[in-house]
């Protein structure tokens, strides 16, 4: 057990290196001279003298070490990101970390709410479906969740905006931002209400897909567990049905559901990109999307590295959780 955990922790190192190499490679393979990008077309336009422009680019290359061989550049970059220094944005020359720090809370807030709602709804739904297998509500729910699972997020978001966000139909929810303009002056409860009102649609869009996925898994896991011998034993010794389900079956069927978190995390960032750019929410997703559009490579690199790192930690935690509840596991057969 201890050796497993130790091995698992050690294996993070090559994965982290791999992540950094891939990120670095993608940005290096991108067309366009980073130095020229850094100075930007505006500056180039101002410098009429082409020779002078070339000189400036050359100096910038030296300043940022772009004239050094690729491995050296990689090493320099690795050293700087180890201290969470992702350089400065090409766009407004602000440190990338500052921008990320500004945006991260918004994305975390939305995703944590969505994740919480997902599990809060998915687990009871899954249990109900499993304990009432093949009943009418189970069938309706199965079909309904299946449909939810196949609905494209961006389409649902557009439809919600179309029908609930003004336009020619109802105007129930705001369609952009996370709070009203005067939100700062509101009292605590009013502020919270305002925030909830703004986040309702985006959070809904981020929740339903995961909800459908997790509750289906929950139903499957629960059905698997209910068939076990120890459940039959529990029933045989006369325990009440609720005690059997909630005390004996639930705990065991929850484990795989918790490890599914690792599957959900990367999908959530992808979802954030779409949802935040549709609802104009100033989070990491929108930041990344805008950075990609304006080829702001330091920001792109920072976001993908941070996201990859967070996902890696999620994976690790779920592996360790799994190892804790299932000590027979080995690295080989995983």
């Amino acid at each position, binding site marked *: 057990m201890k050796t497993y955990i130790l091995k698992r922790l050690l*294996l993070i190192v*090559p*994965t982290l290196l*791999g*992540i950094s190499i*891939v990120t670095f490679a*993608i940005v290096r393979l*991108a*067309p*366009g001279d980073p130095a020229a990008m850094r100075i930007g077309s505006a500056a180039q336009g101002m410098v009429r003298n082409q020779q002078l422009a070339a000189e400036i680019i050359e100096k910038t290359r030296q300043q940022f070490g772009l004239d050094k061989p690729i491995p050296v550049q990689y090493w320099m970059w690795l050293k700087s990101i180890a201290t969470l220094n992702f350089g400065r944005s090409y766009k407004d020359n602000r440190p990338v970390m500052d921008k990320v720090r500004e945006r991260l809370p918004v994305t975390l807030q939305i995703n944590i709410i969505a994740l919480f709602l997902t599990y809060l709804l998915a687990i009871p739904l899954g249990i109900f479906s499993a304990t009432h*297998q093949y009943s009418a509500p189970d069938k309706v729910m199965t079909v309904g969740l*299946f*449909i939810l*699972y*196949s*609905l*494209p*997020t*961006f*389409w649902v978001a*557009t*439809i919600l*905006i*179309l*029908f609930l966000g003004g*336009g*020619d139909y109802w105007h129930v929810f705001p369609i952009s931002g996370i709070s009203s303009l005067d939100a700062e002056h509101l009292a605590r409860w009013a502020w919270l209400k305002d925030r909830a009102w703004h986040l309702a649609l985006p959070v809904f869009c981020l929740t339903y897909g995961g909800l459908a996925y997790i509750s289906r898994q929950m*139903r*499957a896991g629960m*059905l698997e567990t209910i068939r076990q011998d120890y459940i039959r034993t529990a029933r045989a010794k006369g325990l009440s049905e609720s005690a059997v389900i909630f005390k004996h079956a639930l705990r065991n069927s929850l484990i795989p559901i918790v490890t599914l978190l690792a599957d959900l995390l*990367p*999908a959530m*960032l*992808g*979802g954030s*990109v*779409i949802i935040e*750019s549709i609802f104009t929410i100033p989070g990491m997703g929108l930041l*990344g*999307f805008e950075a*990609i*559009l304006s*080829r702001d490579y330091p920001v*792109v690199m920072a*976001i*993908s590295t941070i*996201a*990859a*790192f967070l*996902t*890696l930690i999620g*994976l690790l935690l779920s592996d360790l959780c799994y190892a804790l509840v299932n000590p027979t596991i080995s690295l*080989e*057969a995983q």
Partner: protein
Amino acid sequence: MASGLTAYTSPATPDRGGMSATPKGESYWDLVLRQFRRNRLAVGSFLFVLTLFLIAIAAPFLADNRPIVFRGAYPSQYRQLFDEWRMGGHPELIQALLALQAANSDTAAAQLPARLATVERQLTALASMLPSDQADNLSAYLEKYRSAMEAATDRGGVSAAIPAQVQLLERGLQEISETFSPDRVALEPKLYWPVLSSLRALDIFFLTLAGLLMLLVLLKCTLPRAVPGSFRNQMLLVLLPPLLLAAMWSRRPAVFETLNYKQQLFDGEIAHSFALFPPIPYGINEDHLEEKFQGPSSRHWVGTDGNGRDLLTRMIWGARISLSVGFVAVAIYVFIGILVGTMAGYFRGWVDLVLSRAIEIMICFPAFFLILAVLAFLQPSMWNIMAVIGITGWTTEARLVRGEFLRLADQEFVLAARALGISKWRIIFRHILPNGLAPLLVSASFGIASAILIESSLSFLGFGISIPVPSWGGILNEARESFRYWWITIFPGLAIFTTVTAYNLIGEGIRDAIDPRLKL
């Protein structure tokens, strides 16, 4: 030796809980198929997807502003061809002759046959539009070209003959220009097949393939005895003719049609006795600004967009992009997944350790963000989207294949194969892999669903292409600016949603069929 043993070494039916009561002579896949057929929803979805594919393949015959066929005289095409010959084919030929005169070299002589062929093609096409007696006259001029060419080349390229021939040809041109000028001739009505001539080699391939497959299925259902040969031979028989036809078609000179048949037929510019249009007679990029933002009606079944283009037409053509993206992307990543998973699962040890790290790295990357970032600095094209989705999506497949190999590698049939000294590649690809394919099929059909979702999200965010043919996501992207008009948002989205649902249902169906134990 090995081939004789395969039947014995790879068990046709690996024991999968409670299915030991297999009827004799039924292979594993027969059994899976039988189980799959019981699932009505999955079979229905399969038929739905099949229909979608047929619609996509037959798109030119379903929705286009070109008529499928019309009978008429077509002056403007005659004029176009005539001008092509008079100002293109003919002077180029003369130029080639003069070049031969100036430099009596082989390279100059080598150009002549191609130039002659162009002129021949142009004159034959012109002649085909004329009444028969006039056509004969025109063909007589063609003879003049041929004899002039012979005269020019026969004497070993002696330059003395060329000026006389050139003069002869120029005189010929003048005569033809007068008697056969577009203003003077009376054209003979004939049948034109504009849709057919607009098809590309790929269209021909898929059209014939679909036709043959349907024929095969029909034959099998009605006269099961009439279809000879094994399944593999039948597939070869079905694949070969489309390939040959497509190859022949691709040798056809490229035609770039810019003529607006619909307008010309309507205005009477083409005098016609009858014209058969596709059921939805609109082009994908046929703008009618006076009809923009019209709701569903009998004229436009699902309405029009901001340029007055028929939405249904765009959706039918968009199906080609959306369906093929899903298919090709998944084909790419199943291939990569099998490769990586096989290596890791069969060789184990440090190979497995390294490849598992690679898998882990890929999993950790936020796939959608990565795809966006890579697409941002590639040329926007459907092939790039397919490739990028394919390259980033293989981890699930790789893990699955690895797991299957770990599970199967120690089973008796593999040990037996190894003991018999069969090469390891044969063991991997003929013995283990076929037994591990079933779960792959499941994840591939879920994969197609998610690839279609990813592609449409990308196109929705503006990273796809929508010119000339938009994907469903691309249509939704165009709808973003005009989202007040619900039909532009609802219908393409419904297309995506139903397709994705169908693929997911098929995946569920296959999963239940291969492993009834998991059926919930």
